């Protein structure tokens, strides 16, 4: 029986979809069978980041309305034999095309066949958000280390705490810029975790290669040499229950590295 994890943030543009794509890829690289569900109806992105947008025939709404079987709508990622699938969102409907009950049924139908079901949540706290969290067992909150993003994450955590079927959410801090940390211009990692008071599952450094990878239609997680990729793969291992220490975030200036290493070694 698989586990459904919703990836959410409240604020838009902090990296939910990138995180969903990369965590899905990383889990598949670790040999787990993964289904990604894009619930951002009307503004889908996940298919683009996965490089699967040309192969969409049926979508989420077709499945819940019974116009096709689930397996007809699922798109297999060719990087893997039989491990990574995507259920795309329709681009020509809106969030009210699906309700929570339908989502719950869809996810419970998928659970027996997959190890992990990752649900990419739209921004906001309206129907799209309610749909995305309806069938989830776990939640991962993505935030950047900026006050507006952290504030929205706080709100989302509050809403998730009311959902009894979801375990206490875990936190990913995305796009940490080492040099800003150094200059004390950004909330640091401790500042964010102290504010939100939930478990940290990973920290992702900011890296231009993520954008390059998105344009190449291939999630960064395939690149074994990139630090963002490494960070995502470590999060995937933590999801599997391994204890992997947080790796240091590289950044200018050089002297900072040693400082940060020291900072993390005491954790």
């Amino acid at each position, binding site marked *: 029986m698989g586990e459904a994890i919703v990836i959410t943030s409240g604020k838009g543009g902090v990296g939910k979809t990138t995180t969903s794509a990369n965590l899905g890829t990383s889990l598949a690289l670790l040999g787990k069978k993964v289904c990604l569900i894009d619930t951002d109806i009307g503004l889908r992105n996940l298919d683009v980041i996965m490089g699967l947008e040309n192969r969409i025939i049926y979508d989420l709404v077709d499945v819940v309305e019974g116009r096709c079987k689930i397996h007809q709508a699922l798109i297999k990622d060719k990087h893997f034999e039989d491990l990574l699938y995507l259920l795309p969102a329709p681009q020509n409907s809106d969030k009210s095309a699906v309700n929570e009950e339908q989502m719950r049924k869809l996810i419970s139908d998928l659970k027996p066949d997959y190890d992990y079901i990752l649900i990419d949540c739209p921004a906001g706290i309206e129907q799209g958000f309610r749909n995305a969290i309806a069938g989830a067992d776990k939640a991962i909150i993505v935030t950047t280390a900026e006050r507006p993003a952290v504030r929205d994450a706080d709100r989302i955590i*509050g809403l998730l705490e009311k959902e009894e079927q979801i375990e206490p959410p875990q936190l990913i801090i995305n796009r940490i810029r080492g040099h800003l940390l150094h200059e004390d211009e950004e909330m640091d990692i401790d500042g964010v975790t102290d*504010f939100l008071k939930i478990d940290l599952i990973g920290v992702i450094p900011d890296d231009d290669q993520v954008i390059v990878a998105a344009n190449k239609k291939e999630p960064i997680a395939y690149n074994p040499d990139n630090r963002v990729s490494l960070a995502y793969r470590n999060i995937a291992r933590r999801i599997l229950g391994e204890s992997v220490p947080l790796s240091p975030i590289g950044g200018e200036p050089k002297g900072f590295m040693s400082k940060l290493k020291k900072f993390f070694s005491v954790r």
Partner: protein
Amino acid sequence: MNKRIQQNVMIKGTKDGFMLHLDDSCSFSELLKELEVKLSANYQFQENDPSISVKVHTGNRYLDEKQEEMIKEVIHKKKKLFVDEMISNVLTKDEANRWKDENQVTTVTKVIRSGQVFEVPGDLLLIGDVNPDGTVRAGGSIYVMGQLRGIAHAGYKGNNEAIIAASVMKPAQLRIAGQVNLSPDEYTKWGHDLECAFMDEEENIIIDKLQVLKKYRPNLNRLEGGL
């Protein structure tokens, strides 16, 4: 047989007026009738006599609002009498529960997050933080064992005696009863440790170190004896 007639209404004089003891075992209509008779049989008031306050004690009888009105009406018919207070030994369950709620400390372990409003009828002991855009509201005082960074409203039903205390005071707003105190802009990054807010006689909200509470709110000490 000379059976002594049971008196349903007894009048007793006290130093600030007199008290009517109403028996609680007879029927209400009987009581009302007897009250009327008792009061009319008494002394005729003169024009320039001062008004006399009456306390009414209803014993173990529960009177609803309508019945209270009826008793008051009978007494008010006597021009010089006015009802100062109705005293009863009994409370309804609702009243008792409200009284209990308003006088108890509710302990919660929770982070009050953005957009959440947490409200208790009595005092609130919060073991956790109040984040920005989060609100805690209490009929009594608010004690935060954590960081107060949102809005705290103590004594929101109009209790000026209520206080707000926090381990780390960095609120967006402090409200006590009807007064609002906007946070100063010069709070340090981490806020101030161990502070409290209370209202002075001019209804200004004062924020000060915890130790001043002993002086301004001695009633907060519920411990008797001991040290």
